């Protein structure tokens, strides 16, 4: 690695941070001055969550080069462990930001553990096989959480694992003043919403620091070597499974943190929300933004999440138009003429980082 390239990468990373910080400041200022209406304000936290989801999935799909279709499963683990943490500690830790931070840490840890367990069988596979198995694990996680019934009272946490569907929240036998946190398939109900846009911003920054530094490090280069040629990487002594696991678990834990933030933004959240469709939605963000392109993931997430809301004027044709826009955008961003045009623009401004060139 020569010094010139090092500075280029560093500059691209710094620009990413600067862009996100400026966007946060601008939006915060607009919010403070009442320039955002309710629906726009309401979109801020989910956008932050989905940005973290997209960036972390990009680590698996773009940097590691393994197609994962179960990313929503990790988000789900993070969401429900986060909600249990925040609701369970309500009387112990009165400060909402503290509980939120702790919930996100617990969410990240739980998702990392699940990611590790899932990774053991999954990462032995390659390509399509790996994609199918991650899909299956995503569904398994959803079904398992559907069986959970959790409540808390002065004695502590009560958990029932409702496998055959015969138990209900009444079987928790909570004492007076106890609270039901998760009602099986109906998900978390009555959650106190403590997620904030600032927390979302901080989470995005942490995600960027982790992902960008991982990519630029020795480990990151090893991970990309595994992506580019597994056999060659293996032959020069890179422990393939270790690096695959590193990227996969990091990705899962970030998704868990995003899930915790998401779960604490809504008073009611069912496990069914984190199904296959959500995994695909995040994958669409990543693919549209460009595999391996962190910046692209962020912008694609913002645009594609806002789009269905912006199309409300079309009433019932809204989702149809959303799909058409998606197809058109995918076609045009892959158009060679447009690609060359953007490449020439980039070289004009002398900003063509090799990262993007290799990713496209």
């Amino acid at each position, binding site marked *: 690695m020569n010094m010139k390239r090092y500075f280029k990468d560093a500059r691209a990373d710094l620009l990413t941070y600067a862009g996100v910080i400026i966007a946060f400041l*601008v939006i915060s200022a607009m919010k403070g001055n009442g320039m955002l209406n309710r629906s726009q304000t309401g979109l801020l936290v989910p956008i932050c969550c989905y940005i973290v989801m997209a960036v972390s999935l990009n680590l698996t799909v773009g940097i590691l080069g393994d197609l994962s279709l179960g990313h929503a499963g990790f988000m789900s683990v993070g969401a429900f462990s986060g909600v249990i943490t925040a609701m369970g500690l309500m009387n112990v830790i009165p400060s909402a930001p503290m509980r939120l931070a702790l919930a996100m840490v617990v969410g990240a840890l739980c998702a990392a553990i699940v990611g590790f367990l899932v990774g053991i069988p999954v990462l032995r596979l390659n390509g399509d096989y790996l994609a199918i198995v991650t899909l299956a694990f995503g569904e398994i996680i959803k*079904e398992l959480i559907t069986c959970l019934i959790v409540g808390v009272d002065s004695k502590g946490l009560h958990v029932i694992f409702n496998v055959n569907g015969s138990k209900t929240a009444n079987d928790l036998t909570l004492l007076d003043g106890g609270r039901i946190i998760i009602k099986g*398939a109906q998900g978390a109900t009555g959650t106190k919403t403590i997620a904030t846009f600032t927390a979302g911003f901080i989470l995005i920054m942490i995600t960027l620091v982790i992902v960008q530094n991982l990519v630029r490090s020795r480990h990151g280069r090893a991970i990309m070597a595994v992506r580019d040629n597994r056999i060659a990487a293996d032959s020069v002594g890179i422990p393939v499974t270790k690096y695959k696991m590193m990227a996969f678990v990091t990705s899962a834990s970030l998704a868990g943190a995003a899930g915790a933030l998401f779960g604490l933004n809504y008073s009611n959240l*069912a496990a069914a929300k984190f199904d296959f469709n959500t995994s695909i939605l995040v994958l669409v963000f990543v693919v549209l933004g460009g595999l391996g392109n962190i910046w692209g993931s962020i912008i694609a997430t913002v645009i594609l999440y806002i789009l269905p809301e912006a199309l409300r004027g079309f009433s019932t044709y809204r989702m149809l138009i959303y799909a058409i826009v998606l197809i058109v955008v995918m076609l045009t961003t892959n158009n060679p003429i447009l690609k060359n045009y953007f490449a020439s623009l980039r070289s004009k401004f002398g900003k063509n980082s090799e990262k993007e060139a290799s990713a496209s």
Partner: protein
Amino acid sequence: MKKSLALILALTLVFALAAPAAFADGTFKIGGQGPLTGGAAIYGNAVMNAAQIAVDEINASDSAIKFEFQAQDDEADSGDKAINAYNTLMDWGMQILLGPVTSGSGITVAAQAYDERTFLLTPSGSSVDLIADKDNAFQVCFTDPNQGIASADYFADNFAGAKVAVIYRNDDAYSQGIRDTFVKEAEAKGVSVVYEGTFTDATSTDFNVQLTAARDAGADLLFLPIYYTPASVILQQANQMGYKPTFFGVDGMDGILTVENFDTSLAEGVYLLTPFSADAEDARTQAFVAEYQKRYGEIPNQFAADGYDAVYIIKAALEAANCTPDMSPADICEAVIPVMTTLKVDGVTGEGMTWAATGEVSKAPMAIVIKDGAYVTP
């Protein structure tokens, strides 16, 4: 630099489309929220179509209260999309929420509306969780427990000695809620429940396991507190295996005759509990059904009837509370809550509907049976 600029520009553009919330003069703004696209769209569209009819009728009449109505799609999502739809309506200047149509979205939105003091009347969100501990949320339809209790009572009176099997969807607050109270009431009334089978949204295409188990348990009455789409699959598969119990559904069964590619002769003899029958003789129902058919070319279902009644209930409540269109949503909410318990409204889903402070409606449920492709009273 270019990219960061592009992001900021994109964000600014999107967020600059902000429209300030404005309160109309002279008309109340009612927002409708429900699934207008996706698998549950039939419910949302039925409610919104019928609500539009009611709004047009009121605006054409000499009533002092006039309405403006807007419907937003929540895709029956219980998370971010439900809140997005609600926020969009609030930006529009909504003063009263007619909805959400489905329980899942309803629980999410009702919690938010409670914090912000927006009055909401759900036409068909029947979960108890929707109205629990929220003084601002009222229902037009029965709560799930009421349907469970009414069904168990009906069995005790009309099917004495029957062996009952229940198949319900346990990832659905609606289905689970009815099942819970049904089983409790059945025990109290001495109705014998011999089998309980569950399924989820993902497994709602094959019921052979549950049906075989129900038959092996000797059940001759199958209670289906579920929506009609999975119920149609159950009817088909039971028919294929030659299992012929009496089927009994609740209000979600309403619509079974409209399922595409479904042999409606299989639904002959199916009982269901519903507050609305399009064949009813009274003038109000006849006029509503005729108008709905004229506009949308189909017989209104029970969801439509609930939506139609909801608009008239809102009107009655606003009149009783002496609300004026220039009042804020929170002021209307505080004014309307105390009068809701004093109202008595006649609608197409029941005569003399009254409300408890909890938000539950009180009206007589009615069991009907399907005969020759039509609803008749048994």
